[in-house]
């Protein structure tokens, strides 16, 4: 069985932990730890994905900020869907969309990627994630797990 590489983007700060929580739940479900990668910045993706993995499926889990209720789950299919979601970032950061585009042009990213984004509320430094986001992250993990087992 081929386990897709799953990347959780985020930080230790509040709901920004959503992507990491998805990975934690997946590991509890039995997903192999070697196929789960936690990162802080989208640009770090360029370090973990290389040509050898170009044919593999990539799943990215992240937090986002928008107009929906905290805990709302979005699922995008890249590059078919435009990555319209926003997340707080520094002025030096490359967006996930930019990184995916660089990876595509360098032909070192998979042709398709699935991106899950959980609508976040609190980004307070060092704070715990909200209950809504914790619940949503678990639902995302379950959906990925189920989807993989029924694929």
């Amino acid at each position: 069985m081929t386990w897709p590489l799953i990347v959780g983007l985020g930080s230790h700060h509040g709901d920004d932990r959503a992507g990491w929580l998805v990975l934690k739940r997946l590991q509890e479900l039995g997903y192999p730890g070697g196929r789960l990668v936690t990162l802080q910045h989208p640009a770090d993706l360029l370090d973990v994905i290389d040509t050898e993995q170009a044919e593999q499926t990539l799943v990215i889990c992240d937090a986002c900020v928008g107009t929906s209720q905290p805990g709302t789950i979005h699922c995008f299919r890249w590059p078919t869907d435009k990555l319209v979601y926003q997340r707080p970032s520094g002025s030096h950061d490359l967006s996930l969309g930019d990184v995916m585009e660089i990876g595509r042009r360098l032909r070192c990213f998979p042709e398709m990627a699935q991106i899950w984004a959980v609508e976040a509320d609190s980004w307070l430094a060092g704070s715990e994630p909200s209950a809504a986001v914790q619940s949503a992250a678990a639902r995302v993990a379950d959906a990925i797990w189920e989807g993989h087992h029924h694929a």
Partner: protein
Amino acid sequence: MSSPDIIEVPILTRVEGEGGVTIRLRDGAIENVELNIYEPPRLFEALLRGRPLEDTPDITARICGICPVAYQMSSVHALEAALGIQITPAIRCLRRLLYCGEWIESHALHIHLLHAPDFFGAASGIELAQRFPDEIKRGLQLKKFGNRLLEVLGGRAIHPINVRVGGFHRLPNRDDMASLIPHFEWGVQAAAEVTRWVAGFPFPSFEQPYEFVSLSHPDEYPMNEGDIVSSTGLRIPVSEYDQHFVEEHVAHSTALHAVRRDQRTPYFLGPLARVNLNRDRLSPAAQRLVDEVGFPPHCCNPFQSIIARGLELVHAYEEALTILRDYDPSGPAHIAYQPQEGCGCAATEAPRGLLFHEYHVDADGKIVSGRIIPPTSQNQRQIERDVTDYLTGRLQAAASRDEMAVDCERLVRTYDPCISCSTHFLKVRWEESS
């Protein structure tokens, strides 16, 4: 007298920091160029006052996400001068290694994603990646190993946490250091290929009678130590910096402009200055490349700074490889010291040029005052003069306003400016008389 005609030009990207350029034309000629730095003052020197001197390297590192090591190195050297601390040769060597990591990640980033697109009419590194996927991929790999070195030696790639006054908090594991060696063996060759690639770029014809300034050390390519030298024959210890250079406030910038004290003239810092003034101390592979690519003995074309950056990329990989192979973690990680009242200064070579720090410390080891003069503030006046001279030539060649705006952006980017050492964008604004 005619009044100025104002022209707005869109935002310039791929420049680190937030600022703008105003170009005033009167009666068809360029009257004045101003590099506007409008970021609010960062006030780092004030933030340091009253704090334990041990906080200084980690606080000043936060000035920049691209060159934090430079701020750490200048600060610890200056504080060690104030306290009379002598570090061991092994610690000195590891500091050079850390600096190699920073030069690698900074130069690889600037060459491939910020500067190279200019030579192919590409709007971004992303666009360039479509045309040169192998070259950009190689550049990202080169940057990655620079970051990896910073992680191993500095604790993390951005804002390393292992630097302290007197040395390091802990010495890296021998196996971790050894694991980098194959990557750096590859890196020496790959960086040489990068230099060959950029040396073939089409460079605009533009040379100026610059005064180049950098550190210079008799035995090694300058990073952490040396005298301050210039292409006009100046050679002074760093402690005499204020006798020869001065910062001036200008109305259009929140960053001070540095000029030569007596002549009030600008000067040029960075890789091109370092290579011009120290080329015989480049590593063997870099020196061979200097000859192979025909780099001029005293290059005065700022657009060719990208070649100098490539040569330094080779140098940094080769020197890092030597240090990694010889690494012996048996010595002390740092030198113990007692706080004492004192004053000290130091300059090191940040990727963008000479970075000067000076500190006064009280008997309790608290910072009384600090002063930081980053390379980009020293290059600002030279950038303004370059834009004036270059665009004057382009005007005479009947270049369009749009073409000149692009030219202006490209010329500013050759300096790899880290505006107020925090990056983002530069707006160009034109004013022209009718």
